[in-house]
């Protein structure tokens, strides 16, 4: 576990990136980004597919050489100290890399061996981690027979086999059902409480709000915003959103009726979103102007609103 940083000492960054760049031939995957991750923090990369999140994670994980800029992880240089850095990292990759031919418990033991744990120590660690991710009753099962959620839990257990100081999670809950996601969030939250620094990528806004103290939003290889979920909502959205849904064809006929109703108005094919600090008040004004939507919904602004504002609504393939 991480020793608390002595009061008054400089808060040395666990990860420090300046102008970090990754290129594949002519394609720029990560374009000169700056960020710092402090010890004990849980830090998120949000962004649509192809924004450069995974490339960034792979550079931090010392499996992808940087093309430009600076990167230091745990105070070391990934280019020269890769193996020493990896000894203190836990990695949950986007695609599982479990050994299908081995049992659940053997998967953990062999992974412990890669970190040079003794056979006995690896066995003890394996049993402890199986308890932690609630897979003890499946210890002797072949990995093939596990559900997606179980495999993901096993991958997370495996990433903890070396008691990492820094845990890298690349879309840890993509494709899982809500029960499995909540169990994983609970385990990750416990790790955070133990002082493990978490860095994760996700495109689930609720996941980011649940887990991240601080996050950056990436789009087209660049960081477009940075802050806590709350700060980002305050900065890029209003307190509330009023959603008015109109029958097909009506929305196109509206012209000036919506003007001035809110700080920002967004027309979607089937409804109109009015970003306002007081949604009810805006709804009342709309009603007074004679607008008769099919449904009226006032809700709090979410990270999703921020995300869509910053990265656009166009489908990203």
């Amino acid at each position, binding site marked *: 576990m*991480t*020793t608390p*940083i*002595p009061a008054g000492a400089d808060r*040395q960054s*666990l990860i*420090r990136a300046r102008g970090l760049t990754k290129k*594949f031939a002519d394609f720029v995957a990560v374009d000169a980004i700056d960020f710092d991750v402090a*010890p004990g923090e849980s830090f998120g990369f949000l962004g649509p597919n192809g924004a450069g999140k995974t490339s960034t994670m*792979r550079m931090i*994980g010392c*499996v*992808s*050489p940087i093309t430009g800029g600076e990167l*230091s992880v*745990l*105070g*070391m*240089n990934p280019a020269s100290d*890769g*193996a*020493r850095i*990896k*000894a*203190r*990292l836990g*990695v949950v*990759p986007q*695609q*599982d*890399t*479990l*050994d*299908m*031919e*081995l049992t659940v418990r*053997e998967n953990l033991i*062999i*992974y412990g*061996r*890669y*970190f*040079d744990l003794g056979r006995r120590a690896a066995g003890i660690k394996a049993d402890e981690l199986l308890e932690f991710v609630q897979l003890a009753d499946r210890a002797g099962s072949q990995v093939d027979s596990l559900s997606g959620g179980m495999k993901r839990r096993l991958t997370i257990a495996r990433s903890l086999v*070396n008691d990492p*100081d820094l845990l890298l999670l690349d879309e840890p809950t993509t494709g899982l059902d809500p029960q499995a996601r909540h169990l994983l969030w609970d385990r990750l939250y416990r790790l955070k409480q133990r002082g493990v620094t978490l860095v994760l990528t996700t495109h689930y806004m609720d996941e980011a709000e649940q887990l991240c103290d601080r996050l950056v939003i990436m789009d087209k290889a660049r960081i477009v915003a940075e802050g806590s979920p709350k700060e980002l909502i305050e900065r890029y959205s209003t307190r509330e959103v009023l959603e008015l849904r109109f029958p097909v064809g009506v929305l196109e006929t509206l012209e000036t009726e919506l003007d001035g109703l809110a700080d920002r108005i967004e027309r979607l094919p089937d409804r109109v979103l009015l970003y306002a600090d007081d949604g009810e008040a805006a709804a009342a004004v709309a009603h007074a102007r004679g607008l008769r939507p099919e449904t009226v919904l006032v809700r709090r602004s979410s990270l999703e609103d921020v995300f869509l504002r910053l990265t656009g609504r166009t489908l990203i393939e």
Partner: protein
Amino acid sequence: MTAVTRPGAAPRVRSPLAGGARHVFEYKARVYRRVWRGSIFSTFLSPVLFLAAMGIGLGGFVDHGNAIASLGGVSYAAFLAPGLLAAQGMQTATSESTWTVMGGFTWDRTFHGMYATPVTVAGIVFGQLAWVAVRLTIVAGAFFLVMLAFGFVASPLGVLGIGASVLTGLAFAAPITAFAAGRKNDTAFSVIFRFFITPLFLFSGTFFPIEQLPALIQPIAWLTPTWHGVALARGLSLGTIDPLGAVIHLAVLAGYIAVGLVWALLAFRRALSK
């Protein structure tokens, strides 16, 4: 950047032997422990069938004055058996280094899993090939026992044919492992078997002396690791090996292994470290 984030606890970073090669080897051995029953049949039975059919059946048919003289005064079975011993190394090594290796990158992605740990590219390559060497030793050992049981080994040196078979296998395993590391799909593997392994098996002196081949083709056989492995194993088994010939055979096999190793290191680095 010099300070480490944990002032108290110095991290225990003991560099694993050759970047974790022994752990990668242990992984392969653990997998084998789960699947060995499936391979025991082919490991023992195929040499028995081959030696019985070719050595006794075909051998009994062709063994007469002329043939025995042209084989240097030995029975066809005694001529054939060490050749098969070496050639089988080539086939075992090729099957252990194609789908398994590609799968480690594209199916299970186990090599990516290893590379996320302190295990290095060199550790993965050496661990993988060390395991193939052990597999080759098991297969060649079993084959040699069958040869011995049939009475097809003329010289006590014949036992060294196991080593010749392992080296022949590695001369294929190293470059094929490198080749497999870069594959996105497995279509190339059947090409390897059809257009390289099968012709090499048939025309590299295993079943008949390469002097039987057209004079133009003979030099091609000299370039192949198979012919050198077969000649080495045969010379040892028949006790006719001359030291200079043995050194040349060993040097050629070592050369293939060395080039294959360097290629494998580069190919694994390219595949893992993008």
